[in-house]
């Protein structure tokens, strides 16, 4: 009985948040997105604790009336974390909640963007939603791997919140597009697919074999492999993490946790 109630409550909250977001869109699209995110968070929290979520809803509504313009933004700033948690824990509402997510992106680092915005700006040959996690926005923007993506015109989401990476890992797919970190070694967006380029890469690989072999031997167990990269612009080397292993950020978080 309580389960049914909480389920319905969550749904209603999500719908309310969506409405809020839609209203905001009419006013300003970016604000709307933020609001939507906040609603989703509320929903997930409701599921966990009905009373709590109701309180959150009330709060969000208060925010809305107080500052119509910054409604969604305020909502996202206050409850964005809850929505992110919702994406992680509430698998049945994950897609709905994902629509409410807002992130910074290379397109305009000062504004929050929704995943739908991102998809709308995606290049026609791009099938992956790219993101890069880091300590802070400015630190991420300085990352050497970001440069080439920017040059080629690919938009990358900047995840400066430690929870963001867990969220995107649980999301894995949005609107049939894979969500991937550009700090992992399985992203192939920048790789050339035509035969000539492949031959060239092969040649480079052979040419550099003495160096990669030596480097691997020298570093030993510290690295899994040493390879030739096509993703770098003006920095000599970069350390990627494997698709299924820990990322740099997660290793940091893990180390900070005392078990």
């Amino acid at each position: 009985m309580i389960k049914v109630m909480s389920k319905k409550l969550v749904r209603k909250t999500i719908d309310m948040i969506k409405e809020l977001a839609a209203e905001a869109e009419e006013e300003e699209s970016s604000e709307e997105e933020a609001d939507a995110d906040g609603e989703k968070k509320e929903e997930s929290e409701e599921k966990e604790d009905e009373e709590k979520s109701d309180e959150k809803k009330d709060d969000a509504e208060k925010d809305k009336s107080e500052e119509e313009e910054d409604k969604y933004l305020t909502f996202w700033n206050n409850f964005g974390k809850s929505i992110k948690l919702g994406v992680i824990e509430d698998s049945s509402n994950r897609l709905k909640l994902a629509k409410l997510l807002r992130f910074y992106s290379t397109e305009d680092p000062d504004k929050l963007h929704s995943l739908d915005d991102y998809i709308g700006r995606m290049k026609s040959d791009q099938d992956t939603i790219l993101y890069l996690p880091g300590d802070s926005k400015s630190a991420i923007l300085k990352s050497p791997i970001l440069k080439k993506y920017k040059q080629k015109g690919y938009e990358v989401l900047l995840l400066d919140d430690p929870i963001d990476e867990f969220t995107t890992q649980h999301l894995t797919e949005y609107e049939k597009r894979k969500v991937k970190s550009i700090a992992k070694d399985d992203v192939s967006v920048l790789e050339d697919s035509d035969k000539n380029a492949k031959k060239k890469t092969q040649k480079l690989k052979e040419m550099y074999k003495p160096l990669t072999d030596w480097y691997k031997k020298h570093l030993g167990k510290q690295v899994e492999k040493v390879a030739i990269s096509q993703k770098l612009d003006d920095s000599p080397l970069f350390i990627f993490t494997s698709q299924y292993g820990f990322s740099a950020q997660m290793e940091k978080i893990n180390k900070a946790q005392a078990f």
Partner: protein
Amino acid sequence: MMAKKSLEINPHHPVMKALLEKIKESEDNSPDEASIEYADLLYQMALLQSGFAIE
């Protein structure tokens, strides 16, 4: 728990080209002290830039 690191080098970077030459020049495929030190430095720099902590 450690992340599985995969080091990727930029084949178009002059530093990497120079390192390759050094290794090619050496007889037993091990470059001189200075180059080894430099390679270590580059690796640690990359660790930091990639968001890892230096051990």
